[in-house]
């Protein structure tokens, strides 16, 4: 059995930042693995550890900078990683979910996985659509916002819990091959052990360019583009009190007095 996990390195901005053109100035950004993908990787690695003969492959679309983050996935139990990149990506700027799905579907075609795990969304763009779009593109069954997964590899069925609005859960059986978008909290992602980190140094991390995937620059043309980036005016201030209940209550009381909500 083969599991393909799509992963993305995302940027998180510091509390105070400047905007530079259509993006946050890189000086204020810190790059790390998308939080949802941590859970997707852990889920795949747990399936591998519980089953026999399961291979876990991760795929990312991202620049060279992403390699350390990708290698961390290898350290946590992913067997092999694919990084898709080409100068053309740098020129495009923003990739919409459909374009990403097209690129990823070329990888799916090469790899022929039985199961594809993605995060529910990426913390930077927050489209929340790439996984499902990929499933439609490659004609796989799919389940979105999965927060529990029980896989019967022999029967080719994934029994999943899906988190719906209002605390409702849906239980569904999904036939493989399938794409599941994984919700945070489905498991407890592990830390990379030193042994894992050492082994990761010699696991394959292959670069695929557009050519290798049978794609062309024109395949990256996206109907979406970012037109502006700005910080919305804040309409109010939030004050966060820290400390014991006693301390925070005292602070709250004096604030309420200051702003005139209570008198005295």
């Amino acid at each position: 059995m083969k599991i393909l996990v799509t992963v993305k390195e995302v940027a998180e901005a510091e509390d105070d930042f400047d905007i530079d053109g259509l993006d946050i100035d890189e000086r204020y950004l810190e790059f790390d693995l998308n939080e949802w993908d941590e859970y997707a990787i852990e889920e795949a690695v747990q399936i591998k550890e519980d089953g026999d003969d399961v291979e876990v492959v991760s795929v990312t679309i991202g620049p060279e900078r992403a390699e350390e983050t990708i290698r961390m996935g290898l350290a946590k139990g992913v067997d092999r990683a694919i990084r898709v990149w080409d100068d053309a990506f740098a020129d495009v700027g923003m990739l919409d979910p459909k374009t990403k799905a097209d690129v990823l579907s070329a990888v799916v075609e090469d790899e022929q996985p039985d199961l594809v795990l993605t995060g529910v969304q990426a913390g930077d763009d927050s489209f929340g659509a790439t996984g499902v779009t990929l499933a439609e593109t490659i004609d796989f069954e799919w389940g979105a916002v999965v927060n529990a997964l029980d896989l019967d590899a022999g029967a080719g069925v994934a029994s999943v819990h899906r988190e719906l609005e209002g605390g409702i859960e849906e239980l569904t059986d999904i036939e493989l091959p399938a794409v599941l978008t994984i919700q945070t909290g489905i498991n407890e992602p592990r830390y990379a052990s030193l042994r894992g980190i050492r082994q990761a140094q010699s696991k394959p991390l292959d670069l695929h360019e557009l050519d290798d995937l049978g794609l062309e620059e024109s395949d990256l043309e996206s109907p979406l583009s970012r037109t502006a980036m700005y910080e919305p005016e804040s309409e109010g201030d939030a004050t966060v009190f820290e400390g014991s209940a006693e301390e925070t209550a005292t602070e709250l009381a004096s604030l309420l007095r200051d702003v005139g909500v209570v008198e005295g």
Partner: protein
Amino acid sequence: MTHVETELHGMIRESVGEIAAEFDRSYWREHIENRTFPESYWNELADQGWLGVAIPETFGGEGLGMLEMTMVIEELSRGGGQGGIVFVLTPVFGGISVLRHGSTAQKEQILPGIADGSLRFCMGLTEPRAGTNTLAIDTTATRDGETFVIDGQKTFISGVENADKMLLVARTSSFDRSNPTHGVTMFLIDEPAERDAISLTELDTTVPWFERQYQVDIDGLVVPEESVLGTEDGGMYLLFDTLNTERIGGAASALGGGLRAIDLAVDYACDREVFGKPIGAHQAIQHPLAEYYAKLMAAREITYTAAAKWDADQNCGMEANAAKYLASEYATEAASQAIQTHGGNGFTPEYEVYDIWQNVRLTQTAPISNEMVKNFIAEHHLGLPRSY
């Protein structure tokens, strides 16, 4: 020997930092207040392979070197708590001493236990009278057939209550002026807190540690000759040899503490507003933090150089001593400035900086004082006459 940070190093830092961050200030305060060993923290370090970082794979470790161990200690310290300090006792003192000088049986018996977290060490060197002058120790071990009988007194010995083994330094032959370093032997003592011939008296020290310090009275302790580490009468050579790793480990621990003090001060200075803007906007607050950060970065380079030289089997005496000296001094300055940045809050237990100051200040004195470190550089590196 310039240090080049590899991807492996980046991953080591990130993973160790994540573990350190999981154990927050309240976890450490609880262990310090109750004086209990941080079991879950230690087990996590063992399970993830960090305690065995420099132990060869054949003995259950990960087979990396002093350089990687340095980074682990630095990141544990920088992540808060006392991980850096305890690391020096077991994987450095215990691990390196046994690895370099143990018999095959000792290595097989001890090293896997260090790597998997089941064995903890304490170090019994300091004595009330001898102090820094190790050659003047009064503790004796007298051979009696295939055993030794040990008598004497040690002081300021940390963590005896948690230790499965004590590295004990004792005299096996009397001092001989013509061969001054001869006659001292290192012993590995099992379960020191449980021996009838060893009595412990707790000492009152002001460091914010979960470990206690003891006066250790040893009265007729009988140990088999297999507990000698290295050779009988050759213990000073062994101490001199492993000393450099203890300097490097101490430097790494101070370094991490100093960097943490700066991290916390920067956060506070960006946050705290008086006179209508963050205090960090004033150069009087910025410049000292920048200065100590720069100094710590320089100390870090020489610490890595020392570690890399150790790993390459080169003499690292100068670098190891310089690293310990500079890191301990700069970290103390940094912590002091972090207290200053915190205003009155710098002196409250909610904020960590005063604890950090106490911990890094100690590294100027223990395990070896900076005077002795400078004595070493002056005499052995600069070729000045021996001063004592």
